């Protein structure tokens, strides 16, 4: 790797692989930052690709950088479901890295769709979360009632932890939209 430009032109096959990967990621809702981190394609090409696939320009602005989002009730359930798949695949299949994330995310989407729920966790969030785990900012906490593992802040005490599914908050799932749908 001498200069960025030369590396980019090195292999047509690698570039084709990256384009295929980028298209798949954009279709799953990936943000531009994710594409830049995971492929060797230039920003201009990614922009063009994004517009071609989605028909609109990618959203601007920074990626979410707080781990707090994963702690509120609904996001925590969704994040924990994704992590359950992600960790299962890591333990029992040969998938690694981005492939592991994409597969876990597809399994997550499938489950959410079957349960008629909203897709709360975006691919970009899922990808960010895996990076938070790698950076030891998040950990899995074991619920002492059901034994399931749930996303929690790193270094939080996990003794006596009870998950949001064993002890649902009284107002959980009672959104304005749910009320409107029932009416």
């Amino acid at each position: 790797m001498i200069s960025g430009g030369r590396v980019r032109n090195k292999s047509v096959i690698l570039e084709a692989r990256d384009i295929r990967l980028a298209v798949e990621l954009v279709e799953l809702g990936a943000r531009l930052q994710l594409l830049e981190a995971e492929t060797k394609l230039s920003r201009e090409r990614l922009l063009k690709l994004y517009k071609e696939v989605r028909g609109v320009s990618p959203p601007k602005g920074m990626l979410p950088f707080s781990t707090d989002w994963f702690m509120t009730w609904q996001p925590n359930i969704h994040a924990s479901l994704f992590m359950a798949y992600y960790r299962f695949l890591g333990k029992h299949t040969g998938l690694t890295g981005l492939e592991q994330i994409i597969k876990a995310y597809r399994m997550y989407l499938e489950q959410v769709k079957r349960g008629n729920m909203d897709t709360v966790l975006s691919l970009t969030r899922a990808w960010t979360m895996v990076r938070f785990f790698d950076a030891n900012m998040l950990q899995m906490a074991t619920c002492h009632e059901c034994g399931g593992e749930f996303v929690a802040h790193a270094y939080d005490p996990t003794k006596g932890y009870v998950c949001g599914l064993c002890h649902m908050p009284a107002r959980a799932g009672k959104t304005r939209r749910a009320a409107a749908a029932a009416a």
Partner: protein
Amino acid sequence: MKSTDTYNDIKEVNLSYLMLAQSMVRADRAGAVFKLGISEEIADILDRLTPGQILKMSSSDMLLCNFRFDDTLLLNLLANHERERGVGHVHAAILAAGKAVEAVA
């Protein structure tokens, strides 16, 4: 129920199970490993079974698929109708993912 009926039913279930498991493994290996609760090694075996082998295996007088949920909580989550179905299934999936898979000894 007569014993010949039971035997035929078992055969039928075995055949359906093996055919379903094989097509699941062939279509989506990683997903099948989770849904079937088997190791990749068993997935490989299933993938390679010939139709003849599947037929021979299914005519055994014991069921080839195992009862997977030795956990009352998981069982309740899947069988319970009171809760919102989607949430119960999500909880079940989280617990199931933490379980060991069947592997060849």
